[in-house]
């Protein structure tokens, strides 16, 4: 193996406090990093295109540090990382669609986000008129008595659009292939040249269920790039919002998973608790999803004594009602019959893909950005990260159950020590080109934001990586060998974001 390039590694507390130095690497160095990823030396956190360059964010879990490698491209071609390390494949295909960059040696050169329907090709690159595209070739599956079931992009429930191509033998799924990109809104290009406040608006609308986490990750990146000191009270209020968001999503999804196994009562009961969280959020922070409440420099909403009482009452009610519902889940054999041993994902896969959130933690990947790449105020809070090894739908439900309990505990800890003080620091441009990295644990997993600002504080490049990028591919693995009828159950237990992925 070629010698690894010397990278500038930054520990978590440092990358959120100052601009992030990306390390320039040459072609052999880039190839060596791809091989090191395949050999499990690091975890791939992101790969994205820029004008004339490609970048990779890497995580060294042992040392709890992060690095960004950048390869400058003279002719728009770079050595494919995906050819060594599968998790990079879709990211490379997306970079190829948006910038016209070519991953050399890549096995899969099909477009990903570009469905041949935009008026321009490579909208962030040369941006020439779109020549159109041949029909998308799905991967073949060969064998006796196979049949295909195409599903979507318009789905039966109230959910986002995407296409699933099942190849089945009888009822058993032999191969699932996803095709995404239907809700691609061109957020990367809208970000270019935007002000920070416009950027925060777009970040908060990238995946609606994670609006708090996205706004936080974006703000973190901006604050790091510009070395802004955020007031202590703002950190705590951000965490309160983030835990409320986590609670609402976990409660809703636990109910929805059970509903996909035809246990509707659980959905009704959980949706009551979820609604109570959203109403508490509206009463305290003025919006059910707390959208636009986290802004670069701090927060735009305060918590008064009445709001504090509302949140305390909410936590008390969840602590009162939730355990008996968990007991109901655990004692209903017909329900467990559907969730146990269904949609299993191996530990090896979640490790290779660096899958975050409950998808990773239910298959033994012991990672939570709040603890392992820690940021304020979680460095001062007690947090137990639940991990299981069974990796099935049931394990993902249990991880979320435990996380509901943790979020309740965190909200109480935050309320018990809420310092007075200002809510926001003014964010000023520095007169220099600055880059920053933001990383926040959303309910679904870690959201990574790379932000590059020009001398006037406008956005040169912003790339947001949803946790779903490293979870969607594992859903294809989870359903293999299961019956088609269990797909909704598996899918809901992942609950990947379409919009967050498609951007």
């Amino acid at each position, binding site marked *: 193996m070629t010698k690894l390039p010397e990278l500038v590694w930054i520990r978590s507390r440092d990358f959120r406090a100052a601009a992030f130095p990306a390390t320039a690497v040459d072609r052999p160095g880039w190839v060596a990093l791809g091989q090191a990823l395949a050999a499990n030396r690091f975890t791939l956190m992101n790969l994205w295109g820029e004008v004339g360059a490609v970048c990779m964010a890497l995580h060294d879990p042992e040392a709890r540090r992060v690095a960004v490698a950048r390869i400058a491209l003279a002719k728009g071609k770079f050595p494919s990382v995906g050819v060594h390390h599968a998790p990079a494949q879709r990211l490379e295909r997306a970079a190829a669609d948006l910038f016209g960059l070519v991953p050399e040696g890549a096995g899969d050169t099909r477009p990903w986000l570009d469905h041949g329907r935009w008026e*321009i090709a490579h909208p962030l690159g040369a941006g020439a008129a779109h020549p159109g595209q041949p029909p998308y070739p799905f991967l073949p599956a060969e064998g006796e008595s196979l049949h295909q079931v195409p599903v979507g992009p318009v789905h039966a429930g109230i959910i986002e*659009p995407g296409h699933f191509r099942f190849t089945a033998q009888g009822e058993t799924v032999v191969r699932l292939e996803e095709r995404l990109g*239907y809700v691609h809104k061109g957020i990367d290009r809208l970000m270019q040249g935007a002000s920070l406040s416009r950027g925060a608006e777009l970040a908060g609308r990238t*995946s609606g269920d994670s609006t708090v986490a996205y706004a936080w990750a974006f703000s973190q990146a901006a604050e790091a790039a510009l070395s802004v000191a955020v007031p202590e009270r703002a950190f705590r209020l951000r965490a309160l919002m983030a835990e409320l968001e986590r609670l609402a999503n976990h409660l809703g999804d636990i109910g929805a998973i059970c509903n996909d196994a035809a246990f509707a009562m659980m959905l009704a009961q959980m949706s*009551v608790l979820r609604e109570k969280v959203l109403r508490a959020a509206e009463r305290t922070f003025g919006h059910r999803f707390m959208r636009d409440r986290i802004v670069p420099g701090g927060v735009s909403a305060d918590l008064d004594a009445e709001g504090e009482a509302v949140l305390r009452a909410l936590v008390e009610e969840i602590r009162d009602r939730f355990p008996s519902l968990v007991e109901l889940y655990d004692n209903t054999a017909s329900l467990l019959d559907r969730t146990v041993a269904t949609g299993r994902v191996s530990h090896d896969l979640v490790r290779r893909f660096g899958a975050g959130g409950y998808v990773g933690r239910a298959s033994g990947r012991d990672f939570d950005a709040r603890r392992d790449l820690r940021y304020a105020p979680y460095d001062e809070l007690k947090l137990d990260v639940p991990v299981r090894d069974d990796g099935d739908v049931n394990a993902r439900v249990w991880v979320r159950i435990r996380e509901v309990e943790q979020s309740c505990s965190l909200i109480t800890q935050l309320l018990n020590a809420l310092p007075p003080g200002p809510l926001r620091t003014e964010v000023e441009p520095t007169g220099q080109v600055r880059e920053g990295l933001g990383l926040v644990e959303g309910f679904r997993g870690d959201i990574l934001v790379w932000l590059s600002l020009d001398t006037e504080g406008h956005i040169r490049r912003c790339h947001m990586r949803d946790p779903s990028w490293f979870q969607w591919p594992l859903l294809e693995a989870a359903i293999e060998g299961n019956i088609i009828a269990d797909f909704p159950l598996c899918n809901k237990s992942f609950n990947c974001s379409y*919009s967050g992925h498609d951007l």
Partner: protein
Amino acid sequence: MRRFLLEGLMRKPLTEGAPEPWTEARDELVAAFARAQRDRLGRSLSIRVVDAGSCNGCELELQALGNPFYDLERFGLHFVASPRHADVLIVTGPVTRNMAEALRRTYDATPEPKWVVAVGDCAKDGGCFAGSYAIVGGVEAVVPVDLHIPGCPPDPTSLLKGLLALVERMGAEAGSR
């Protein structure tokens, strides 16, 4: 399980009173309905939701309409799985170029008479995504829209008000004949 069922019987229901129908929306709809169509449908509507590019915020609030606080079905409104079973299409999001054809085909698959309700600020004119190479525009750019419910996202009460205006308009017209 028995405990929960028993509790459900004993306790006051969580379902809240119906909000006042939204008057502006009601007026906006007058033009949209022909008498014969109203007669046929009465007060019941089947709704098919199509996400044409939303951030999934609107979907979350549409899902919330089914929870015991809002209980959409008590008004004769229910979500169906196929456009072929639907009277109303609810469309969310700015319409992305990658979804425009799927939306058009879903509209074509919905039998007449049919109505389209555009939900959310993005569905009006593309919202904060307007002007992107990947966006066609609001829902109106692809299929005719009868009613728009604004908000980012509209909360369940606003959604309910809009939908009730739709049903009430139809009921009133049918009754006055």
